[in-house]
């Protein structure tokens, strides 16, 4: 099936659904802007003999966009896997608010408010875009709850309120309608209004990335980990994405952003950490990082560094780790 031509106008200024913001407001860990939501200290990951991460330290603040940049294979995705629980670290610890995340399974971390997207898309390809978001919205529903059964009978639902979401919240008329309208609103929030019925695997990459973002937002995260959300977007879409992320951060969310689009990173990030060969080689404001000679050598500039010449790169380590 050829990619379906869609009107991707980019994120809009529509107000975000309450589902996204309510947890932030009713929250104790990382409520106030400027407090660390995520503290990564001395985290190390080894694949065989290769160190993918060695003693990484960084923090992400509430209400700020924290950038994480570095060459391919620097260990950025591995760090995301450690934070979201898909990879056990060989050393160090990760704090979420004041909670140590060691030994907490990935789905519990998500319920605590850690959401992420993936560098290589991980959509539910056989579901529609709307259903993708719904799965995120409904993830807190327990199996013994009546909503489970009610959701099987769509014709029992009350009329949908097309208007503001407050109406939907006050008069749910069945759980399905709330989830469906909220999903639609979330999709509209990332610039995908009207696409909720498209099968996810048939969407173009740029749109699919936005569906993933909407699904991540659906769990009402306090910490949002974004793995290259800008790849596959054109300039105007990328700019709209920047605006959206800034707005999300302004609502009190902590955002950790891995991105290769330097314009985007420099424009919206409050703090930037530079990762190379599994180590943080520089941290600071965009201007400080840009001026850092080590960063210029390793990444921004084209100059060769002594470290990049020999030995198997961490990039290989990532792949081997995934393959074993």
């Amino acid at each position, binding site marked *: 099936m050829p990619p379906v031509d869609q009107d991707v106008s980019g994120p809009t200024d529509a107000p975000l659904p309450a589902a996204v913001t309510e947890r932030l407001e009713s929250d104790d860990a990382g409520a106030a802007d400027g407090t660390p939501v995520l503290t990564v200290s001395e985290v190390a990951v080894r694949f065989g003999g290769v160190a993918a991460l060695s003693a990484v330290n960084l923090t992400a603040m509430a209400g700020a966009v924290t950038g994480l940049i570095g060459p391919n294979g620097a260990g950025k995705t591995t760090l995301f896997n450690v934070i979201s629980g898909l990879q056990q670290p060989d050393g160090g610890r990760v704090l979420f608010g004041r909670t140590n995340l060691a030994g907490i399974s990935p789905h519990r971390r998500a319920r605590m408010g850690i959401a992420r997207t993936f560098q290589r898309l991980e959509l539910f390809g056989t579901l529609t875009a709307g259903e993708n978001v719904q*799965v995120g919205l409904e*993830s*807190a529903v327990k199996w013994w709850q009546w909503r489970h059964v009610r959701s099987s009978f*769509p014709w029992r639902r009350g009329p949908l309120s097309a208007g503001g979401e407050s109406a939907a919240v006050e008069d749910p008329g069945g759980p399905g309608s709330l989830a469906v309208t909220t999903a639609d609103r979330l999709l509209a929030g990332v610039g995908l209004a009207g696409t909720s*019925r498209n099968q996810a695997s048939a969407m173009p990459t740029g749109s699919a990335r936005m569906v993933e973002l909407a699904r991540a937002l659906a769990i009402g995260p306090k910490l949002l980990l974004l793995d290259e959300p800008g790849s596959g977007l054109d300039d105007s879409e990328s700019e709209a994405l920047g605006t959206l992320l800034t707005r999300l951060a302004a609502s009190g969310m902590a955002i950790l952003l891995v991105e290769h689009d330097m314009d985007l990173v420099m424009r919206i990030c409050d703090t930037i950490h530079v990762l190379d060969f599994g180590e943080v080689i520089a941290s600071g404001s965009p201007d400080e990082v840009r001026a850092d000679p080590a960063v210029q050598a390793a990444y921004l500039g084209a100059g060769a560094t002594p470290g990049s010449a020999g030995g198997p790169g961490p990039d290989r380590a990532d792949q081997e780790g995934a393959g074993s």
Partner: protein
Amino acid sequence: MNQFLEFTVLGIAIGACYAISATGLVVTYTTSGVFNFAHGAVGMIAAFCYWELLAHHVPVALSLVIILLIGGPVLGAFVERVFMRRMYGASAERPIMVTLGLLLILMGAAILIWSPTVTRTVSPLVSGTFPLFGVNLPWQDLIILIVAIVVAVALRFLFYSTRLGFALRAVVDDPDLLTMSGASPNAMSRTGWMMGFFLAALAGVLIAPTLGTGIQVDTLTLLVVNGYAAAVVGRLKNIPMTFVGGIVLGLLVTYFQNYAPQHLPQGIGAELTAVFPMVFLFIALVAMPSVRLRAVGRLSTIRIPRVAGGRESLAAGVLFIVAAIIFSLFFGPVFLSQGLSTVGPIAGQTMVYGIIALSLVLLTGYAGQVSLCQFAFMGIGAFCMGKVAGGGSLLGLVVAVAVCAAVGALIALPTIRLRGLYLALATFAFAEAVQLGLFADTRVYGNQGLNVNRIVLPGLSFESDHAEFMLVTVVFVLAALLVLAIRRSLFGRRLVAMNDSPAACATVGLNISFTKVAVFAISAGLAGLGGALWGTLQTTVGTTDFDIFSGVMFLLFLVVWSVRTVSGAFLAALTFAVFTNVQGLSKVEGLFAGGGIILIGRAANGILGLEWFADRIRLPWVKRTGTTLGAHDDITGPAQGDFGLLEGEARAAG
């Protein structure tokens, strides 16, 4: 003490056969990523060919050369080229289905060629015995031992001291890297399949003479299947551990066989011995380290059959029942009676098999979990129905569903953290253990089969064949409505999501383990309901009704039609019922199931999902679109326009 030595040597010899067979599995798996379920059947075919050649007075040495050095490798290369190469990159359950299809083809062909009624004994390579510590030991055992050692040493040399071995090990780690360094992954995988088939054939030829009662298709296949357990001990990659696993299993089985029955009540010992290897396999699976969740990194691009909405499926169900009533009136009571024609049994069994198929649509179609033990649940359900309250009561149905759901959850619980292949293996082990240990016992179904009465409710009797047919039809429709409702529900979305990307599921806060156990239990319960109704339909159930290979055959029929749709379930049940009931067709059932699955190849949605099929033949109940709609089919708005566009695009592309 002498006896102990004798048993030890015998155990090591049998274990060495398992080890050789298992090594073949491991070599194939590591080089191509495909677990060859047909491995046991290859060994079986080799043993039969060996018998055939000897019967035609071909010299032993020449026979061995023909079978081991020519037949096995050539067949292996053929299978790899024709069946397997198309599978690379397909979803995880597809290679499982294709190798199962190959298993059925080989078994079906063997039964056609070598009639099961003839007794065939294979004489040992060297007959006679030799004395050791005052005990006379058979030469055959010694030969097996020597061959096993030679195989082990040769493999060690091959993998660690030759260029080919280096490439073979590299292909496991990273096929892309291997391509870049100039070797061809296809060639490596072909080598792996040729070696695997050679080792399977070797194991079959070595083990055949140890069977005193002659070689049989089923027993020989299952015997080589014991190698699965050894391969799992080696975690499908470690050859030395695989050898250890094989020898330990061989010793345990032999000791158990010869010492345990004396201490156990009459009749139980034999069953436990038969079940032992499968229990061993199950324990080995449970002891496997859990698999790390990781991103899949690819999107399934298949077009998914639309899920009918609530009103729509209800209307279709009513229409189906009306059609069944017209059908039954048209054929009349004589045709529908279970004894007088084949139409009656086919009609009734279609509905019951349909319920089993629906349990697989839920489990395999939606959730992507492969179960090879639905027929075992069916048998347990029938047993509960017959034993509770004298049979024929509603309580029996309830107990059947409850027991099967509980057993299903128990099976799924320890293996749920493993990948799909291991769950499939665990269900295989369970199905075989139930068949050999439970269904084969005459105390379970009795010598003449177990009587199951038809259901009689106050004021409502289903004793006539006609009423029974209507009962199973209505239950089938209700089950179909239930499965569709589950698919449309929140739980259904989770099932599909879990199948698409477990890692993404976890990162939105879903507990995948619980979802897996739940769907397995529901599916087992549904299969138990089908089994209970099977009992009432047949009125007697026997040991052969729930054969494990029939279950595999049934699953393949379903996958060929379409494992994701209710229509596929109905058509698979109908086909299966026709094949089993029509004289002549039942012999070639396995060939059809296996051939079908190989022809359908990678088409994930089966025949009903094929584009040419959907384009040309529009069944009233199969509507094709690119999306699932059920969950919110009463939304109106801009989405409608977009959806129309999508559908238009799809049609233009097709």
